[in-house]
């Protein structure tokens, strides 16, 4: 426990015992290791340790709670209602209508930050964070303003200006002695009980697919198709239904269109996702996997019966109160699946027409799997973890996996596609020439020309070594087989819970910033990741004494530096 160092994602990877156990007696009886800090520290210090606050910042919500909680105690949003002046109680008035702000983009006043930092008021971001955390502390966590350690869970690509605003706000307004930074995808993996995963985070502004291998982020791809776009699609759907003519001139009649809250509410409550069109093919591929097939088949059949029979209970009435006058919409149930189709799966758009940053989710997942090295891919594809607000849309996760399975079936991990490739595959003539060249006759021909009959060493197939094989088998005896090679989704408790778990297990993060250092140097004082990593690893392997080795001479921002 004291051995690991480095950022959480690294440190857990380092947990593999660095000590060389005795080869002959690997199962030497030993007392199971408990928290060293607790065995050596006095109980009072233990209590103080418990007070670590875990904060997770996303673009819409703040999650806060203590280390060791399974779910965050506070979930606070950054909507305009939360941003009013203190003592402005107008929202509790009878008949209060929420403000309508003119926004440059949909839902802008609801987000803490946006990916595009141009024109973003960083001071305002700091103010929002400050108020949200203050709210969480006084209302939900019920703690006073005594300084306490903080663990900050952040998206893995947070721009440095934002990070430094966040840290500035925390250090100046809440006086924590130290803040540890942890990256969300890795924590999501930890909270799923895995070491490697493909984390699909369907967030607000973008969907991020991160390949995590052995607690390391190895790759990350993103697409703008996420909850924001989904909500906007829902808004358009509703607006079209209310005033088919007016919706073109949106600005003229804002009051007659549903508010963002209402759209979001409808999106959360009623939206669903159609099952994929390729269920049959998926069934075939499923046969190879050991997962309960019958269940799968049954559910897919049921899903089919829904989609195939749109008339059964199809009309849904939705009350809208934010428009003037309020009315109740009667929508066909199947229509409520459309925003999902359009926004997340880019229905009706050819894949060739899409830009790189707006790939539909299934393509995004497939591509990021494709880009991973084969070993990592086989591990990751059976550890797909869905997280983020969009992942709770009923049917969405299954749909993505079905589509990905279909893509794998069709394209078979071949990054090259297009008409020429298809022709090449289907045309027997082209195939034959290829086989001839590679055939034994070809080699014979070449033999005549060149005098070196032996091809380069890299091309020779590995010689079969029975002893090596035996050794490998022996070594693998104790280990359980690793699930790999088929598509499988795993549930995670989420990044916040991962952070809570790790800090309760006392796994230190590599990027731990102390207050004094930050106030003195700011972000400029951070050193490169590698330097600190090495130093810390040396020191901390000493055991309990070194575990709290006072002041580190420098700090790092880890991933974010």
């Amino acid at each position, binding site marked *: 426990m004291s*051995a690991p160092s480095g950022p959480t994602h690294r440190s857990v990877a380092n947990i593999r015992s660095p000590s*060389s156990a005795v080869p002959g007696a690997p199962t030497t009886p030993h007392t199971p290791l408990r928290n060293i800090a607790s065995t050596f520290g006095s109980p009072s210090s233990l209590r103080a340790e418990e007070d670590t606050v875990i904060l997770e910042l996303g673009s819409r919500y703040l999650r806060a709670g203590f280390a060791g909680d399974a779910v965050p105690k506070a979930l606070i949003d950054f909507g305009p209602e939360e941003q009013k002046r203190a003592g402005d109680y107008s929202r509790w008035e009878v008949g209060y209508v929420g403000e309508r702000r003119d926004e440059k983009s949909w839902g802008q006043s609801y987000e803490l930050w946006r990916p595009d*930092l141009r024109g973003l008021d960083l001071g305002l971001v700091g103010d929002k964070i400050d108020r949200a955390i203050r709210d969480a502390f006084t209302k939900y966590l019920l703690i006073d303003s005594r300084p306490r350690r903080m663990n900050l869970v952040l998206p893995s690509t947070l721009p440095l200006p934002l990070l430094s605003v966040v840290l500035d706000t925390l250090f100046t307004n809440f006086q924590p002695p130290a803040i540890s930074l942890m990256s969300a995808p890795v924590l999501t993996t930890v909270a799923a009980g895995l070491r490697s995963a493909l984390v699909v985070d369907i967030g607000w502004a973008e969907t991020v697919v991160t390949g995590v291998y052995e607690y390391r982020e190895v790759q990350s791809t993103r697409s703008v198709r996420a909850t924001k776009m989904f909500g906007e699609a829902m808004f358009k759907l509703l607006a079209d239904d209310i005033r088919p003519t007016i919706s073109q001139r949106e600005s003229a009649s804002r009051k007659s269109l549903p508010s963002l809250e209402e759209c979001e509410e409808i999106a959360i*409550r009623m939206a669903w996702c159609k099952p994929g069109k390729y269920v049959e093919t998926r069934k075939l591929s499923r046969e190879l996997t050991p997962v309960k097939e019958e269940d799968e088949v049954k559910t897919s059949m049921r899903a089919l019966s829904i989609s195939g029979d749109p008339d059964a209970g199809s009309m849904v009435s939705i009350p809208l109160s934010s428009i003037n006058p309020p009315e109740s919409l009667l929508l066909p149930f199947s229509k409520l699946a459309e925003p999902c189709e359009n926004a997340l799966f880019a229905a009706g758009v050819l894949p060739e027409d899409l830009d790189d940053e707006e790939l539909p989710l299934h393509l995004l997942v497939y591509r990021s799997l494709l880009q991973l090295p084969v070993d990592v891919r086989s591990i990751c594809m059976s550890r797909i973890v869905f997280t983020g607000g969009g992942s709770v849309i*009923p049917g969405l996760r299954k749909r993505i996996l079905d589509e990905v399975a279909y893509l794998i079936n069709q394209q078979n991990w071949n990054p090259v596609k297009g008409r020429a490739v298809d022709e090449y595959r289907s045309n027997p003539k082209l195939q034959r020439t290829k086989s001839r060249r590679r055939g034994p006759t070809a080699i014979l021909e070449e033999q005549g020309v060149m005098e070196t009959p032996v091809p380069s060493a890299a091309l020779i197939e590995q010689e079969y070594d029975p002893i090596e094989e035996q050794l490998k088998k022996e070594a693998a005896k104790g280990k359980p087989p690793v699930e790999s090679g088929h598509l499988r989704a795993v549930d995670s408790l989420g990044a916040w819970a991962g952070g809570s778990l790790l800090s309760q297990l006392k796994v230190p993060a590599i990027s731990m910033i102390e207050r004094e250092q930050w106030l003195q140097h700011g972000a400029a004082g951070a050193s490169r990741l590698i330097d600190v990593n090495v130093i810390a690893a040396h020191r901390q392997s000493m055991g309990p004494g070194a575990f709290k080795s006072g002041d580190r001479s420098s700090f790092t921002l880890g991933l974010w530096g």
Partner: protein
Amino acid sequence: MTSFTPYTYFLCPCTDTSTSTRNLGDSPSAESEENSDDERTFDPRAARSNYSLYPLEHLLYCEDCHQIRCPRCVLDEIVTWYCPNCLFEVPSSTVKSEGNRCTRSCFQCPICVAPLSVSSLEAPPEGLGAELASGQNGPFVLNCAYCMWSSKEIEIQFDKPNGIFAQLAKIKNGGEPIITAKDRRKDREERGKRHFSGSSAAEEYQESEAPITLDPNERLDPESQFSNLKAFYQTQMAESSPVSALGFTGDYGYGSPGALSRIMGLYTGGSFADKKSKSKSGTMREARDALEGLQIDPLSSSEAITKLSTEGWESTASCAQRHEQTTHTPFISDLRPIAYLLRTKRSKRCKTCRHILSKPESKVQTTRFRIRLVALNYIPSIIIKPLQPTLLTASTLLTPLKPVQFLLTFKNPLFDAVKVTLATPAKTPGRFPTKVTVLCPQFEVGANTDVWDEALRDNNTKSSLSGEKRRTKAEASEGQHQAEAGKVWERGRNWVSVVVEVVPPSLRIDGSEWLKSEEMKRDGEEVRDGEDVVEIPVFVRVEWEGEAGGEESGLGGGGKDKEVREKRELAYWCVLGLGKVALD
């Protein structure tokens, strides 16, 4: 658009607006210009101002720093935790161990957040001997008196009418029992035992106690998944880093033979032993089943979709309802009663000098304070009234471009007379600037002396300076045009009214293109919410001669410490909300 009540907000001096406001992408020259300009006008409509403006009632005053203190520049200390429903005090240890909710029987309705009450399902005994019957019995439910929701709807019933929190923790929605954390722990320990001592011992154990066998594929709730994961990681970390004799982990455990062999191998290059031991040292493995916290995603949500399509909007939980729940609850049938959040009584300290500014009585039921230095008792309050009495029939909206006069009444809570200086920008910042003129920007407000003192003094001399200057109604109405510049409108014992004249802006945007300012072009064509409210920033400077602080007089010593007067000064921005402008 209905009525508008004028309001005042105070800007806490702790906010340093000039430093951290930074727009990325702005030209740096503009930024530096802004920073250099110290005496910049405060813009009440700027997005950040919402975070630093407070009503006077929210502010405290530090007597040692002589400064206003807002919630952002005080430190909290918790006096007590209590449940707002049953008003029971909760000790801090319980808060730490049990969390932030009431663990007795206080619950809120998951549908409408009204308090729930416990009631028996059986009819109360009637007739003869009803008094003898030992109270109500039989299954109990939680009932909402407001929306008539009952825990029967989610098929939860209780055996006892008290300790509902503990009982609820054992029942799932639908009535199935929840395997408690304790049972899970027991099961885990047992599995550990089986692992170590072979199966026979475990079998014996099973016979003796017959524990619950846990399904390795079950769906776990977040709490139990978390605890399973935690236990799993703990065992894994313990197994993968064994403790050597010295208690050290890691490379420096010289006591172990393994370490010795490693040291021997250090200088002989990559030795065989090293390689082998590396492969043997167990990598922390992944969780394998639900008992270790792994949850395979079932993916099939066709049931949920079917339910959505058949039961429709009414069956789903609203966002507000979901927000109160700890788990994901798409349907109303998933909702659970919400235990009341605890509340706290807090004492506040000044962040700079650590003096206590406010300290409530620790008993939950009392509302008294031991110490309470509220700003209301130190800085003059401002009351806004229109000068011309408005007719009831007339609309309360301000007419664009027509001058209106308002009466600002400053009331002095101090026992010393104060000198007030007001400063306003001639035009308020923003897209629609209001022209502002304070007719009397400098005046003195009398001390808040005893009312009887005043009456007695009044009898003796009609002092010219602090004398009353009241106007009768007739005078006021006829004096509409007589609001003279440089003169106080009305004056009382500890209050003074001055007139401020305002020319509200026209909210019309469709002027000719060249008339528009840059800002207007950038921000679009529409009047945004809040822009039709006339808000004027006023810089208030208050000067008075107060008694010198205790320390200083102590140092000075001697008998004349009563005479030692100290000049004090306080300056802050205020925002006056005067009215709404009619759209024309």
